[in-house]
C-alpha cells in the first residue's frame, strides 16, 4: 500500500495546472469537440467574454487526476460531481484541491471527498464531491 496517511479532514495536495489556449486545444482534440469559445480569443470576445473559457468537463477531469496523484493511483473512483460556480478565463492557473469528508473505520472501503478548483485570482470556480475506493 502506498497510500498517504488518510484521516478525516485530510487535505488533498493541491495540483496547479496552467490553462492556456494550447491546453484547451489539446482538450478539444481529446474530446473531439471544437467549440472555438474555449481556445479562440476573437470568437470569445465576439461572444462577450474577456477571453476563451476553460471547459467545465476539463475541471471535472482535473478532479480525477488530483485524486489519482494523491493516492498514487491505488484507487478506483466511484463517483465524481461538479458544480461550476464561475468561468475560468484562459491564461489562468487553476488550482485543484479537496478534503476528506467521510472515512469508514476500516479505512479500506470508500472514502468521501469534497473537491474544488480556483483560478489565479483565488476565486472558487468549481465545487464538487467524489467517492473513492482505495485499492
Amino acid at each position, binding site marked *: 500500500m502506498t497510500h498517504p496517511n488518510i484521516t478525516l479532514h485530510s487535505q488533498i495536495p493541491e495540483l496547479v495546472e496552467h490553462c492556456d489556449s494550447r491546453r484547451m486545444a489539446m482538450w478539444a482534440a*481529446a474530446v473531439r469537440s471544437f467549440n472555438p469559445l474555449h481556445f479562440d480569443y476573437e470568437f470569445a470576445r465576439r461572444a462577450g467574454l474577456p477571453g476563451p473559457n476553460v471547459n467545465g468537463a476539463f475541471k*471535472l*477531469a*482535473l478532479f*480525477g487526476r488530483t485524486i*489519482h*496523484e494523491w493516492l498514487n493511483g491505488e484507487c478506483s473512483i466511484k463517483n465524481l460531481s461538479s*458544480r461550476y460556480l464561475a468561468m475560468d478565463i484562459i491564461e489562468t492557473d487553476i488550482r485543484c484541491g479537496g478534503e476528506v469528508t467521510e472515512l469508514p473505520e476500516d479505512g479500506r472501503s470508500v472514502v468521501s471527498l469534497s473537491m474544488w478548483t480556483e483560478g489565479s485570482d483565488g476565486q472558487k470556480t468549481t465545487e464538487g464531491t467524489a467517492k473513492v475506493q482505495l485499492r
Partner: protein
Amino acid sequence: MSEKGDPVVTDEMRQLIGQRSAPLHYEVESGACRMFAWAVGYKDRIFYESERARSAGYRDLPAPPGFFGHRLVIPGAGTPQGLQRFLDTPLKVRLDAGAEIEYLGDICAGDTLSGTSRLVSLEEKSGQSGPLLVSVTEFEYTNQNNELVAKSRHTVINR
C-alpha cells in the same frame, strides 16, 4: 416567460421529458485514452503503456475519469446527439452548470460502449441576462458485455 412573452419551456419541449434516446455507439480507442490523459496532464504511465496498466491490474489502458470514448463522426453528415441537443429554444448560449458521474464498472481501451440519454427535467429560471432554461440530462453507458458501467447526469443552462 421570455421577452416576447413566449414560455421558455414549451409544451413540445415538455413532451421530451422522460424520453430515452436511441443508443449511440462509443469506441474507447487506446490512442484516444492516451490523448485524454495527456490533455488532463496525467504523468502516470499506466495511462499510456498497456503493459504497465495490466501490471497494475487493469484489463488495458484505463479510460481516465470523465472519458467515455468517442462517437463515430462523419464530417458533413451530422452527428447523432443526445436529447438535450434537440431542444428547440431561442436561448442559444449554452453553459455547463455541473455534472455527476457514477462508475459501476471499469472502462478500458478496447471497450465499446452503448450510451443512451434521457431528459430528466426542464425548468425556467430568471437570471441577470433574462430568462434561463435549465435542463438535466442523464446518460447510461453499457459495455460490450452488456454491463452497465457508468451513469452520468449533466445540468446545462441556456440563456
